[in-house]
């Protein structure tokens, strides 16, 4: 922990949170993940706030980030509402269950499970860093019935890219699992949504990133209501964090152009391993 609550005057904490969230916002963008997944283990481990409030802030932070990006992604065709709707429904139901479960379980149990989850996320990011989806995905009957196909314009390629989803039942199951973890730990879920959409369902990476953000905006809304209704939100914690991550993300976008993506990803994985190990050790009582 940076210090106990008594070390600094109360007004220093929002400033420290803003500064921490600003750095996390930069790292999150250059590492290609949402800020929530870094925020909860790091702020939960280093700051004096109880994990209940940190998880609530983490959810709001991921919610605001995804909401802010969603309209432009939708207008530009880089997110698909039709694709997000069924997946977000599966995730919303389980995110609510996860949020209630997280608030009902003993803190040590949640902290230890958070540590294990963050270490597994780091492992997933490491394993999938060079993975690519199959070249010619075959649309399944679920995707055909739901109209989960289309095209979007890729400005980098200079032409339209056709896409079609496959393995929809597996995708629904994946989003249900991701929603549960997101609600339970207050994490954004881009770290899992993007591989699920891209590698499992065969959606092109750019559309997967946009649709993941849109899905998070829907899924986290349902879980955020639970935290609000249970009184687990502290404005002094969530507002400076949201502002810090958003400003940091803007700086991160500029740095991204100058930094090698693989280097950034390695840095994020290293941070996740340290944060996950710390949360796990706290959960074990060390």
């Amino acid at each position, binding site marked *: 922990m940076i210090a106990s609550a008594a070390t600094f005057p109360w007004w220093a904490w*929002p400033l420290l949170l803003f500064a921490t969230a600003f750095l996390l916002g930069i790292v999150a963008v250059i590492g290609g993940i949402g800020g929530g997944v870094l925020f909860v283990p790091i702020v939960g481990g280093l700051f004096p706030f*109880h994990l209940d409030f940190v998880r609530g802030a983490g959810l709001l932070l991921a919610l605001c980030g995804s909401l802010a990006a969603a309209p432009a992604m*939708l207008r530009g065709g880089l997110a698909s509402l039709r694709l997000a709707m069924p997946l977000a429904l599966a995730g919303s139901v389980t995110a609510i269950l996860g949020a*209630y479960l997280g608030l009902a379980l003993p803190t040590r149990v949640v902290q230890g499970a958070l540590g294990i989850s963050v270490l597994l996320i780091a492992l997933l990011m490491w394993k999938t860093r060079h993975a690519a989806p199959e070249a010619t995905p075959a649309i399944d009957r679920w995707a055909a019935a739901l109209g989960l196909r289309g095209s979007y314009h890729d400005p980098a390629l200079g032409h339209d890219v056709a896409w079609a989803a496959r393995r929809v039942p597996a995708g629904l199951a994946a989003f249900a699992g991701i929603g549960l973890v997101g609600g339970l730990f207050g994490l954004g879920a881009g770290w899992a949504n993007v591989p699920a959409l891209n590698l499992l369902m065969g959606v092109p990476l750019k559309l997967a990133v946009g649709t993941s953000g849109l899905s998070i905006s829907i899924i986290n809304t349902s879980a955020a209501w*639970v935290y609000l209704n249970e009184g687990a939100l502290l404005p002094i914690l969530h507002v400076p964090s949201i502002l810090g991550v958003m400003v940091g993300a803007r700086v991160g976008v500029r740095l991204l152009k100058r930094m090698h993506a693989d280097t950034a990803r390695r840095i994020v994985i290293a941070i996740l391993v340290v944060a996950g190990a710390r949360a796990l050790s706290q959960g074990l009582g060390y």
Partner: protein
Amino acid sequence: MDPREHSILEEQRIYARWLAAGILIGFSSLVASFFIYLFGLMPPGIPPETLPRYWSLPVHEYVALTGAPTGWSWLRRLGESDLLNFAGVAVLGTTTLVCYLRLVPVLAKARARILLFICLAEIVVLAVAASGVAFSTH
């Protein structure tokens, strides 16, 4: 109109428009109410200088000791600057629900039955979450 927008479905354009409006209202309220709280422009429910005594407690103890509101009871205490901030969170939380409600006639007109069913189911899920009636832990 951007020439590539022709391929973007009608429901997606409407959803984006309503979402952008909701975010603007919700985010502005969230930030403005926080600075009202921070600079003491309105009386707070829990003064910020006393918060460090409570913020390391589990939420159930925090609620019991401070009388912080659960459910929608913050609505009756909007004169307290820290709870005014909850209004911004609630607007952000309601935005997706409103966007889905706006999709209902669009999907019905397009006869997209499965998507309409999914849309209605999501409305129910979000409404249950917002109501707080599901399984309150207090």
